[in-house]
């Protein structure tokens, strides 16, 4: 993407296009990766609700996995996940392992 020159930027750095965070991918910040174990998932969608970005993908009201372009690896989803019978549906593993 070609960067804009000073004559092209908005006064005061105002952002005019709402919701443009979708263009800002933060996946490279991650040092831990959430892994989804579907067999332990009760589809409570806590992960989707608590995710501070938009890394949890949902289709037809059901959790379908992660979009790692937006996952910084904060681990909130794994912390909040109630799992099934004491087994978490989301666990964090170290990147590169």
């Amino acid at each position, binding site marked *: 993407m070609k*960067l*804009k*020159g*000073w*004559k092209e*930027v*908005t*006064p*005061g*750095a*105002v*952002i*005019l296009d*709402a919701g443009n965070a979708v263009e800002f991918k933060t996946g490279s910040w991650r040092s831990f990766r959430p892994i989804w174990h579907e067999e332990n998932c009760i589809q409570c969608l806590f992960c989707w609700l608590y995710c501070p970005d938009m890394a949890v993908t949902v289709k037809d009201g059901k959790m379908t996995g992660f979009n790692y372009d937006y996952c910084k690896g904060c681990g909130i989803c794994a912390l909040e996940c109630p799992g099934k019978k004491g087994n978490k549906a989301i666990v964090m593993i170290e990147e590169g392992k």
Partner: protein
Amino acid sequence: MAKIVAVTGNEAAAHALKQINPDVCAAYPITPATELMQRFASFVSNGEVKTELILVESEHSAMSACIGAAAAGGRVATATSSQGLALMWEMLYIASGLRLPIVMTVVNRSLSAPLNIHCDHSDAMGARDSGWIQLWSENAQEAYDNKIQAFRIAEHMDIRLPAIICYDGFIIGHSIGSIEYLDDETVKNFVGEYQPLYPLLDIKNPISYGPLILPDYYMEYKKAQDEAASKVANVVLDVAQEFEKISGRSYGLFETYRLDDADIGLVILNSAAGTSKDVVDEFRDKGIKAGLFKPRLFRPFPYEQVGEALKHLKALCVLDRADAFGGSYGPLFLEIATSLYPYKEKPFLINKIYGLGGRDYLPEHAELALNELVQITKTKKVKTVKEYIGVRE
């Protein structure tokens, strides 16, 4: 119809604010600016203005509320002095960086310590690199006129920068003088309907203020801000020309007094210029070609125009009502010296620090400076560049 009144400087500034009727004012009281906002608060309570007055717990909050209101899309004003301005420091840069045309009156007062409530210019000089436009005023009339013009300058679509109006605490702020008020309708038409740029309250076009800008873009925004500042001087002159049509009073980037054919001159800001003009007249009566230069637009400083206006003099004394601690000369001296730097032939320069913490500036101080300049033109030598005057040994 214009009307002649006897009012304090603060009263005149409050009256201007009433006629402008801004959308939002957020302010915190501090001597000597208190009277201005106290009078304006009465206008709000009496329903004479439609302004939303926000009472806050500190000047940091006052400026924060002004920034929020300006980003929301309102015409916004405030006032402060001294420590209040110092407490706003962080937010001053945010107002200018976000390009919000807030107008603030600074009733000049010294900075602590030692604690002192009286006039000097250290408060506004401390804000001189904050990106705010600064217009300085000799008397209540200029304070009133500058305030009205400041809204037009700050809000100009090529500028969109906040502006400060300065006048001397107590000396002008609390002293009664005779000035001329424009009528309400004239002021209303002159400042015009406020045109917001990217208002947050335009909910059909959602936008964001204050994003994190990393090294790939920060300089582009700062360059754009500097470019806006470079256009201020021309806008100040255009607005002044229009203002002359409604008031009959003419303003420039600075005022020159008997300077065109002068050999020696004083450079001085705000109220002390009045006293100095009398002394200049006395020297002229003695056959000495003295003159005076009084900056009006101090930020952005119009270096080229100032240099052109002063380069023909033989010797100049820059009088600073603030010191720039750290081994420096006074802040006004630095700007005058910079303005004259490009010229091969230029006046000898000396710097006198006067009137700190409200110490009286007397005719004898101007006489002392002018007599020294006469000596310098004879000897072609400067003994001491910077010196405190009116101070006990």
